């Protein structure tokens, strides 16, 4: 059954659209890759197209659809091998992808406000980050709160949002040595992105503050506070508000 001559087109196919590619991710999954203007950087327009296509596929809800994973410039589609075959699924997905640009423009997302207590014990790196950027901590906070972010994807851990839209002046490399323990709710910057740790875990991002909201709870009807494609804004709060909004309040 083996094929020692592994050809370059073994698990891809030529498409009529030059800017998307279908790759086999697993026996039961296709990866749809969008060509971004610069492949290695995070491009908001490409990401919007990913979310638009994901929304279109989810709305159509073919019976064989098992999972749909939007990421920065790629979309994974998991299918039920007992209900379809890979080629049928790919042809259907390809047809859906032909008009995604219009969707991207039409898609409206709601804005979710995330309250954050910045600095102090809850944002251990705030002062160091401000010093490194040569700005005051207040300026750092106001710039972090000013932006309207997009949940580019969720990953790393259940409910962990990768938020695009960070003010470029706040981009910072990750810690050389990751922390072994980052508390749940930590709001952090990693490279050109910002994110929130849903659960205590190791992590290498710079900690600015903490939200009292519970990002992920498998017992809730909507387990994740945020979904891919959602818009997010951070709102600075004080200790009292944090205590009032906290999970034990």
């Amino acid at each position, binding site marked *: 059954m083996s094929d020692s001559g592994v050809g370059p087109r073994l698990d891809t196919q030529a498409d009529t659209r030059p800017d998307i590619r279908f*790759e086999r991710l697993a026996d*039961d999954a296709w990866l749809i890759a969008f060509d971004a203007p610069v492949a290695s950087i995070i491009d908001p327009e490409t990401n919007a197209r990913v979310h638009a296509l994901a929304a279109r596929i989810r709305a159509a809800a073919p019976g064989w659809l098992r999972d749909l994973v939007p990421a*920065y410039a790629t979309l994974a589609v998991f299918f039920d091998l007992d209900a379809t075959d890979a080629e049928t699924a790919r042809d259907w997905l390809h047809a859906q992808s032909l008009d995604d640009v219009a969707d991207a423009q039409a898609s409206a997302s709601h804005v979710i406000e995330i309250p954050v207590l910045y600095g102090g014990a809850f944002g251990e790196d705030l002062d160091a980050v401000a010093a490194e950027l040569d700005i005051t901590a207040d300026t750092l906070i106001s710039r972090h709160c000013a932006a309207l972010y997009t949940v580019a994807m969720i990953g790393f851990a259940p409910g962990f949002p990768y938020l695009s839209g960070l003010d470029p002046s706040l981009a910072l490399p990750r810690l050389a040595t990751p922390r072994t323990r980052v508390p749940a709710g930590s709001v952090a910057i990693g490279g050109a992105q910002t994110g929130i740790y849903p659960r205590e875990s190791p992590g290498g991002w710079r900690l600015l503050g903490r939200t009292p909201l519970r990002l992920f709870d498998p017992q809730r009807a909507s*387990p994740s506070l945020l979904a891919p494609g959602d818009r997010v804004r951070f709102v600075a709060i004080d200790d009292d508000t944090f205590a009032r909004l906290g999970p034990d309040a």
Partner: protein
Amino acid sequence: MSRCAWHVIAPGALTTVQDLGRVGWRHLGVGRAGALDPASAALANRMVGNPPDAAVLEITLTGPTLALSQPARIALCGAGIDARFDDARTGLHTVPGGRPVDLPAGVLRLGAIRSGLRAWLAVAGGLDVPRVLGSRSTDLRGGFGGLHGQALRSGDALPLGQQPALDPLEPQAPAWWVALDTAPPNASPIRYVPAGDLPARIEAARALATRDWRIDPRSDRQGLRCSGAPIVATLPEQISAPVAPGTLQLPPDGQPIVLLADAQTVGGYPRLGHVISVDLPRLAQLRAGDALRFEAVTADAATLLRRKCDAELARALFAVDDRLRHA
């Protein structure tokens, strides 16, 4: 008919509650989890009269010691495991695998796995832990599902579903047994479909099949780490993209990783392709230090092998039904 729980006297090396996994939540970062060999879990379930997605115990390396306050019907599938039953009245009995075994109240001692790494234990009525996000599987990284979101611990109470009426005087098992005809993991290469677009990636994917690998001790349900002569490749920087159970990743150190059922949902390492689904259960039986080789196949070949494997499971399930009917 009554409900009961098993008392965990000792947990074993890593014993988790698993079913066929969690589907429909990957977009929120929730992985599949589930038995690393779904066919063995389904077969064990069939032997005790359960549906294929009933929750079972996945046993790794050494098994747990469990106190049964009431009789139970169990079945063990997967790797061969030393299993004994300590009955207060009749002493120590060997518990055979690959068939239903009726046990009186007593202590079930699951010892070392003899060859391979993992076995699956089904009990009539299933393990009655709550479904979380549609599944009873343990999500070890997320800390939910299964029994309290973690591996078994000493002192745990493992709840069981509706128990059949049984009252064996001592362990009772039929003489027949049924097993899946699975090639041992090191008998033949693990097959993968190479990723193929960029020349550098094609070359790196091809290199996987050209050398001998060993299983690194840091392997777990999330990923199987291979060690060997590193694959040196100049691959373009990749922004995080979805991954799946079976995805072959190449970290900068050139030592490939095969993602398994507990794989995260997205990853940033370059992908070399994916191990075909029929060979993932074989990977579940590899121990640290075991040798393995890879062989490239086409996606079409993977489909044919999948059908063959489904037919093999159907044959085994039929054989179980047939023997139970004529018991």
